[in-house]
C-alpha cells in the first residue's frame, strides 16, 4: 500500500468535494438532504397519484392480509432456514474438494481435473430450477429401494450440486491467487505436495475468498424458494397459497420481507469481514 505521507485518501476526497461545492460541509449536507427529500417526495407523489394506485394498494399493500398470513408464512420460512443451513455446511466441504481436484498438478491426475471441469461447467450452465425439478420428480420415479423420495432431500441435493459448482470456482480463484513461491517455500521445507496444499495454500486461499463465498450463500438463501416447485411448502409457496386463496399479492411481500430480513445481517457480516481483513492485511504498513 503506497500512501504518500501526510495525505490520507479521505483527506483527498474531502478537499476535492469542497472544491466542487465551494463551501463548508454543513451546507453540502443541507443541500443533499433537501435534494433527497424533493426527489423522494416526487417519486412518492407520482406513484400515489397514478391511476392504478388504489387498486395496487389494496392488492399489494393490504395490512389485513399481513395480519392473516404473516404468521403462517414465517412458520414455513423455517423450512428455508433449515434447508440453507444444511446445504451451506455440505457445500463448504464438497466444493473445496472439487476445487482441490481441479488444482491437482501432473498428467496422471488429468482425469480428475477433467471431471471437476465438466462438473463445474455442467452445473453452472443448467438453470437451478431445472436441476431441482429433474432431481425432485425424476429420481423418486425410478422407485429404487433405499433411495429417499423426500422432495426436500432432493431439492437440497440440487441446490448443493448447483451452488458447489459456483463455490468451487470461488475456491479455485483463491487457490490460484496464492503465489507459487508459497508452494515452493513449503516444498523446500520438506512438506509433500498434499501437505503444502493442506497447511500452506488452502488456509490462505480460504481466508481470501470468504467474502465472495458469503456472497454466494446469500444467493443460495434466496434460491431455497425454488424447492417449492417440487412439493414442499416453504415461505414462497405459502405466500403463493395465500395469494390464490384471497386473490391478493400482499403475502408475497411478507415472504420477500423475511428473505431480506435474513440476508441483510449476512451482507453486513460480509462487509465487516472484508473490512477486518483489510485492517489486518495492511496493519503496520503506511
Amino acid at each position, binding site marked *: 500500500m503506497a500512501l504518500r505521507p501526510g495525505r490520507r485518501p479521505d483527506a483527498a476526497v474531502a478537499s476535492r468535494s469542497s472544491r466542487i461545492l465551494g463551501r463548508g460541509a454543513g451546507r453540502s449536507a443541507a443541500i443533499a438532504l433537501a*435534494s433527497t427529500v424533493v426527489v423522494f417526495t*416526487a417519486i412518492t407523489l407520482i406513484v400515489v397519484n397514478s391511476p392504478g*394506485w*388504489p*387498486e395496487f394498494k389494496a*392488492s399489494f399493500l393490504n395490512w389485513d392480509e399481513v395480519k392473516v398470513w404473516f404468521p403462517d408464512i414465517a412458520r414455513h420460512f423455517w423450512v428455508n432456514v433449515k434447508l440453507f443451513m444444511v446445504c451451506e455446511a455440505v457445500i463448504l466441504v464438497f466444493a473445496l474438494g472439487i476445487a482441490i481436484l481441479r488444482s491437482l498438478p501432473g498428467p496422471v491426475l488429468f482425469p480428475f481435473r477433467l471431471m471437476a471441469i465438466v462438473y463445474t461447467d455442467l452445473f453452472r450452465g443448467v438453470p437451478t430450477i431445472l436441476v431441482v425439478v429433474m432431481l425432485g420428480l425424476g429420481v423418486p*420415479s425410478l422407485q429404487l429401494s433405499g433411495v429417499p423420495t423426500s422432495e426436500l432431500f432432493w431439492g437440497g441435493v440440487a441446490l448443493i450440486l448447483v451452488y458447489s459448482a459456483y463455490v468451487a470456482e470461488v475456491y479455485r480463484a483463491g487457490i490460484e491467487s496464492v503465489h507459487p513461491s508459497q508452494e515452493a517455500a513449503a516444498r523446500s521445507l520438506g512438506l509433500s505436495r498434499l501437505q503444502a496444499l493442506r497447511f500452506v495454500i488452502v488456509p490462505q486461499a480460504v481466508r481470501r475468498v470468504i467474502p465472495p463465498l458469503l456472497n454466494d450463500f446469500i444467493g443460495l438463501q434466496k434460491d431455497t424458494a425454488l424447492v417449492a416447485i417440487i412439493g414442499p411448502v416453504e415461505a414462497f409457496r405459502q405466500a403463493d397459497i395465500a395469494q*390464490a386463496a*384471497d386473490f391478493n399479492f400482499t403475502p408475497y411481500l411478507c415472504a420477500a420481507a423475511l428473505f431480506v430480513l435474513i440476508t441483510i445481517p449476512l451482507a453486513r457480516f460480509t462487509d465487516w469481514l472484508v473490512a477486518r481483513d483489510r485492517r489486518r492485511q495492511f496493519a503496520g504498513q503506511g
Partner: protein
Amino acid sequence: MRRMVIAPLLVALLAVASACGSSTANDSSAGSAPSASAATCTPEKLQTLSPGKLTIGTSNPAFSPYFTGGPGHEWKGQFNNDPYADKGFENTVAYGVAEKLGYTPDQVTWQVTPFGKSFAPGPKDFDLYLAQVTDKSPRDQRVDFSVPYYQANQAIVVKKDSQYAHATSLADLKGATLGAEVSTTSYQAIQDVIQPDNEAKVYNSTSQATQALENGQIDGLAVDFPTAYYIAYVEPGGLAIAGQFSGAGGEDQWGLVMEKGSPLKTCVDRALNEMKSSGELAELEQKWLSDLADAPTLQ
C-alpha cells in the same frame, strides 16, 4: 451555476409529480349499473374489451373435461384443448352465455390468461374468465364473480393398490401424505376438512401433482371432483378415486371472473340464470360431466 439550474428543476419535478395522474384517477365511477334487460344486454350496448366482440379468457393448458376440443390455435400440446372447438363443460357454458348475450360464435375471441393474471390489479385482457375458479371471500373484493354455473365437490385420487383406496371416512385419510395443485381450493380443503397429520405437498400443475402421486411421493391427490374423474379414469394409469367430499365451507361454487365493477356482470348473471331456469345448464352438465356420479362420499 449548476446548482442554480438544478434547484428549479427539482421544484418543477415536484410540481409535475403532484399534478400527474390526479386528473385521470377515479373518473370511471359515473352512474350505477343499469338493471339488466334484453334491451341493454346486446353486443351493441355491452362495453366489452373490443366493441362487438366478447373476449373470454382461460388458462393454457385448458383441461378436460372442461375443454375437450383437442389441441388447436394457441392451445397446443398433450393436455391442451382448443376453446374455439365449443366442446367440454366450461367451453359450452361460455358459448351458451355468449349466445344469450347475442354474440355469434365468431364474435367470441379466446384469450390465454394464466390464473394468477386473472386477478392481478390493472386492466384485464378478457371480458370473462373461466377456469374452474371458486367464488369465495375475500377473492370477491378483487374481482367480480357471476352467479355460480357449477357446484363442485372435492375428491381424493389414490393409487388403486394404496391402503387409502378403500377409505370409508375422511378420518381414514388423516395418516396419508396428501398433495394438491397450488392456487386451488383443494389445498384449503385438505387443511380445513381432512386436517392430515403430515404436512400437505403443493405442486405447480395437475400433471406434476399426478407424477408425484405415481412416484409415491404423496399417497393422495386432492382435486375438484370432475378433474379427479378425468385423472383417475380417462387417462390410463393405476389410479382410482378414494372418495369425494365437501370442501371447506361446503361445495365449491364456480363463477365467471370479471373485472371489479364490470359493466357486464348484470347481463352475464341474467344469461346464466336464464340457462339455469331453462334447464340448458343442467343439460350441459349432464352431457359433459354425467359419468361422475358414482364415487363414495366421505364424511
